[in-house]
């Protein structure tokens, strides 16, 4: 790796973790306002240092291992969840030059890494030796496998239209033509919405959070975890959502493309906006039941995704889509 690649990957990791930390604050603030509350106000100005206080609290907590847990897997799983979530961030281009891993199979690799993030979740659920954790992990696996299909299908739409699997090329194509949600709108917008839904399900967020449904499964996979290991799982969920919004804005919202100013700024702005919309969804919608979740994936999202892929392929052959 060149020095530039090192530097840009460090920069991207710093951006992602900083935005995640303040995303935590922003989510709690937004959630508070949406429920007519104030949100965090005590720590720092307008509660801005709340994530740091949370982190300090988590680090201080005693790590507890259940007696019959699989110790090695139990310890290994949480850091791995965060690691895999962060790995995806390396592939997202934050600027025309600022793409730490600018590879030609970016889109499939992102989806593959997203699927890989499932393994530590299953590890955690299995190693905990707890029925709730195991049930949560099983649900997470079933859900991710189901929603991986529409995720791939909808991610194929920009790939077909831009004629490249390189994320940077897709953004460059949108820079030359239009952002995908703008034109062709009948392809870009539905694909974008479907992608967001599938991505939310992959990240196990509300309304698709049955793997950790509090009212049924205590806390699902993270039931037995304490302290910083719980923190890692928690962090991974946030990073997953954040990186997912970054990928969605890269594929559909034109990524780093903006009318003026530095490209990194536009990328961060779009990601944060999408992140906020996801939290808006989170605090508005109720949880789907497990069978409803599967029905939604297989009866609606997969056929719709297939139709979109077909339409996109036809569109590229028409005179306007060339």
């Amino acid at each position: 790796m060149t020095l530039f690649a090192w530097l840009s990957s460090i920069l991207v990791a710093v951006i992602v973790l900083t935005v995640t930390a303040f995303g935590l604050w922003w989510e709690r603030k937004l959630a508070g306002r949406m429920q007519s509350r104030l949100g965090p106000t005590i720590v720092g100005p307008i509660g801005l240092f709340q994530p740091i206080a949370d982190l300090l609290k988590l680090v201080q907590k005693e790590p507890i291992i259940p007696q019959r847990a699989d110790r090695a897997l139990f310890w290994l799983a949480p850091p791995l969840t965060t690691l895999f979530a962060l790995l995806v961030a390396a592939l997202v281009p934050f600027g025309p030059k600022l793409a730490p891993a600018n590879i030609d199979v970016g889109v499939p690799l992102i989806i593959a890494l997203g699927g890989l993030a499932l393994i530590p979740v299953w590890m955690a659920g299995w190693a905990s030796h707890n029925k709730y954790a195991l049930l949560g992990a099983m649900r997470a696996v079933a859900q991710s496998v189901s929603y991986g299909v529409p995720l791939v299908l909808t991610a194929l739409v920009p790939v077909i239209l831009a004629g490249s699997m390189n994320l940077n090329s897709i953004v460059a194509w949108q820079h030359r033509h239009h952002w995908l949600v703008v034109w062709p709108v009948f392809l870009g917008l539905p694909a974008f919405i479907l992608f967001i839904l599938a991505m939310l399900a992959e990240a196990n967020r509300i309304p698709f959070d049955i793997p950790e449904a509090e009212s049924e499964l205590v806390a699902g996979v993270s039931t037995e975890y304490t302290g910083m290991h719980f923190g890692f799982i928690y962090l991974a969920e946030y990073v997953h959502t954040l990186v997912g919004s970054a990928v969605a804005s890269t594929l559909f919202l034109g990524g780093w493309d903006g009318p003026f100013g530095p490209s990194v700024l536009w990328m961060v702005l779009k990601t944060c906006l999408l992140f906020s919309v996801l939290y808006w969804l989170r605090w508005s919608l109720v949880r789907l039941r497990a069978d409803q979740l599967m029905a939604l994936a297989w009866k609606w999202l997969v056929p719709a995704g297939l139709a979109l892929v077909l339409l996109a392929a036809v569109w590229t052959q028409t005179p306007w889509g060339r």
Partner: protein
Amino acid sequence: MGYLLDGLKSMWTTALNAIRPPFTQEFPKVLRPHPERYHTSFALLHDETGDEACTGCGACARICPSQVITVKLGKRESAITQKKRGYADDFTLDLTACLVCELCVQVCPTDAIVMLKVPELPGFRREDLVLSMPRLYENEKSKPLGWSNATKLMAMQDPKAGAAKPEPSKETAPAPAAAGAAS
């Protein structure tokens, strides 16, 4: 389809909420105005001669539904009027189980116990919420007293008092009170 419509509806609600000012306030820093008849903690009063008003009769302890009041009766000569009368040698009120029903105030024959307009501060130990006799007399001096006492409350119960007269009130809507009781 129903889920989708309901989802959009709730998203509209949350979006409106996000624009509206928040309903909650930073509690210890910002305090909402209390209604006029707000009552929380207790105080024991002195009568007009400056003597302790409580005669130690124990009516409050008997009527208390959760039995949080203990009164120890003592008889001795008053230091002020030189007459022999009953005193509370000890008076304890445990706020941890108090229902705030105000019955003890209502039955007091000498208007000795009243309620306060301000709550006790939360503490770190259970004993912090047990009001001993010195604390009850301290509350009389240091904290704003509530609206009611036994005379007023009993007057409200009296059917002969007739139609309730609205009491002069600034903060709340006019509440019915017994004639002659409001002051």
